[in-house]
C-alpha cells in the first residue's frame, strides 16, 4: 500500500503525525497510512481544549466503518485547540490527513527529537504492511 509520509513531520509508532510551530504548539493528526487502514471515517470524538495530556495517553477516538481507534498524544502538554470541523466532516481525515484533517493542537515544551522521523516511520508502516493483521485493524467482531 502506498501512502504519503511528508519528510518535514515527526511521527509516532501509533501512527500520529506531529507538526511543530515556533510558539511551542504542535499540531497532531493521523497519518495517511493510518487513514488508509481504517477506511472511511464516520465519527471523531474530540477532547475539550484545556485538557492536560501525557505522552501516549488516548485523547481522541476515531471511528471508521470497520474499527474504532484511539489517537494518542505524542507529547506531554495541554490541548489548546481541536479541529471542530471534524465533528460534522470526519471524512476530512481521509481526504487530507496532513492539512484539513488535523485533529488537535497541543502546547508543549517537549523535545521533538524523541519522535520518529519520516524514514523511521516508513519502516514501521512497511513492517505492519507485511503483517496481514495490521495493528489498526485488530478490532474484530466477537461474542
Amino acid at each position, binding site marked *: 500500500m502506498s501512502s504519503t509520509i511528508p519528510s518535514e513531520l515527526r511521527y509516532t509508532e501509533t501512527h500520529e503525525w506531529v507538526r511543530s510551530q515556533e510558539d511551542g504548539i504542535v499540531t497532531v493528526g493521523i497519518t495517511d497510512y493510518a487513514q488508509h487502514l481504517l477506511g472511511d471515517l464516520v*465519527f471523531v*470524538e474530540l477532547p*475539550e481544549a484545556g485538557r492536560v495530556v501525557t505522552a501516549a495517553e*488516548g485523547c481522541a*477516538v476515531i*471511528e471508521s466503518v470497520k*474499527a*474504532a481507534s*484511539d489517537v494518542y498524544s505524542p507529547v506531554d502538554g495541554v490541548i489548546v485547540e481541536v479541529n471542530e470541523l471534524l465533528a460534522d466532516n470526519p471524512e476530512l481525515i481521509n481526504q487530507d490527513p496532513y492539512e484539513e484533517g488535523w485533529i488537535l493542537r497541543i502546547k508543549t515544551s517537549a523535545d521533538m527529537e524523541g519522535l520518529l522521523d519520516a524514514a523511521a516511520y516508513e519502516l514501521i508502516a512497511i513492517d505492519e504492511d507485511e503483517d496481514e493483521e495490521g495493528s489498526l485493524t485488530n*478490532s474484530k*467482531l*466477537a*461474542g
Partner: protein
Amino acid sequence: MPFIPHTLDDVRVMLDTIDVPALETLFDEIPPSLRISELPALPDALTEWQVSRLMTERAAELSQPLCFLGAGAYEHHIPAAVWEIAGRGEFYSAYTPYQPEASQGTLQVLYEYQSMMAGLTGMAVSNASLYDGASALAEALLMAVRANRKSKSKRVLVPRTLHPFYRKAVRSIVHNQDIELVTLPYDPSGGHTLKEALVPYAGQDFAALVIPQPNFFGVLEDVDELTDWAHRHDLLAVAVVNPTTLAVLKPPGEWGRTGADITCGDGQPFGSPLNSGGPYFGFLCCRKELVRQMPGRLVGRTVDLDGKPGFTLTLQAREQHIRRSKATSNICTNQGLMVTAATLYLSLLGPHGLEQVAAICHANTRMLVELLSAIPGVSQIFNRPMFHEAVLKLPHPASEILDGLLARGILGGFDLSSEYPELGNALLVCATETRTEADLRQYAEALAMMV
C-alpha cells in the same frame, strides 16, 4: 441456531492447538482472591424427576391472590397471541444477532421495538433494551456523566421519590465509578419533588437530575419544571417512566422547553408476566446527539446491494467487542425475548388500546382509593394527581394488615414502613385494568373488617 456444547475431546484438541496444558491456565489472569473454588451453599444436584416433583409441590403451595401490589411490576392483561408468537423457535432467543444475512426477522422485530419506544417516549433513539429498569437507569446515569461536558463532578441528583430498589441498584452499579448520588427530599403533602428542594443545589456542579414519572408513590411529578431547572443549570434531565403512562401522559421528549435528554424505565408492563420477579427488560432512549454514549445494541434500517430494505446492528464501535475496556459499557446484549413480547403486545393493543389500558388503570385506582379511604382510619396520604398507585395511611402497621388480607386471598400492596418510616403505617396500593369493580369492593370489605 442450535447450541452445541463442546465435548471433552473438543476441548482437548483446542487446548493442544494453542499449546495450553489445561483450561484452568486460561483463567490465570483472574487473581486467586477473586476466585471461588467451591460453592458450599449449593446443594447436590437433583435428577430431572426430583426437580420436577419439587417444583410441582412448590407450585401447589402458591395461591392466586387478587393482586393490588404494584411497586415497580404490574399485572396487566397479556393477549394470548403475544407469547404464542414470541415462543416460536424463530424468536426464542435472548440474543441479538450478528449475522444480518441470517437474522432479518429478529433484527426487524428489534427495529420495530426501537421505533415504537422512540415514538412513545418522544426521543430520537432507542436501544434494543437492557436487563431491567434499575440497570437501565444506572446506564443512563453513566451515560449522562460521560456526555455532560459542562459538568466535571460525577454527581447526580436523585429524588427520594424514585423507587427505593432503583436507588439501591444504581448505587451498587455506579459507586465504584466514583459517581455520587445526592438525594432530594419530597414534599410531605404532595408526595412529589418540589422545585424548592433543588434550590440549595443551584450553581453547584451536577451531571444529571433524575425525574421519575410517575414516582414511586404513584404521584405525578412537575416534570416540565424539573426538566427546565436541570437544563438551566447545565444538568442533563434523565426521565424514569412507566411505559404504560406514555399513552396518556406527555412523552419525556416533550417535557419542559426542550425535552428530557435520556429516558429509561422497566418494560415489564408491556407483555412480561409477573414470574416471581422476572425476567423483565429495561428500555433506554435518548436524544440523537447522545447516541454514541448510549450502551447496548442498536438495530438500524438500511438497503442491500440491490436496494432492498434490510436491518443490521449499527454503531457497534461503542461496544466492547470493538472497543474492549473503552466501550460505553459492558452491556453487549439485550433482552430479546421480552422485547419480542413487548413488540407484539404493543402491535396487538395499538395506540388506542394502550390508551384504554392506561385510562382504566387510572380509573380503577381512583375508585379503589375512594372505596378504601371511606373506611374509618384509612386515608390517602398525598393530595397530588396520581397514575395507577396511591399511598394510604392505615390505623395499624401495614405488615399486619397485609398478612390478614393475604389470608383472605388478597395481595394488598407494598408496605412502605421500611423504606419510608416517616410515613408511619403507610401502604402503596395499585389497581390495574385487570381488577373488576367486584375485586375492588372485595378488597374494601376485607380491609373494613380488619381496621
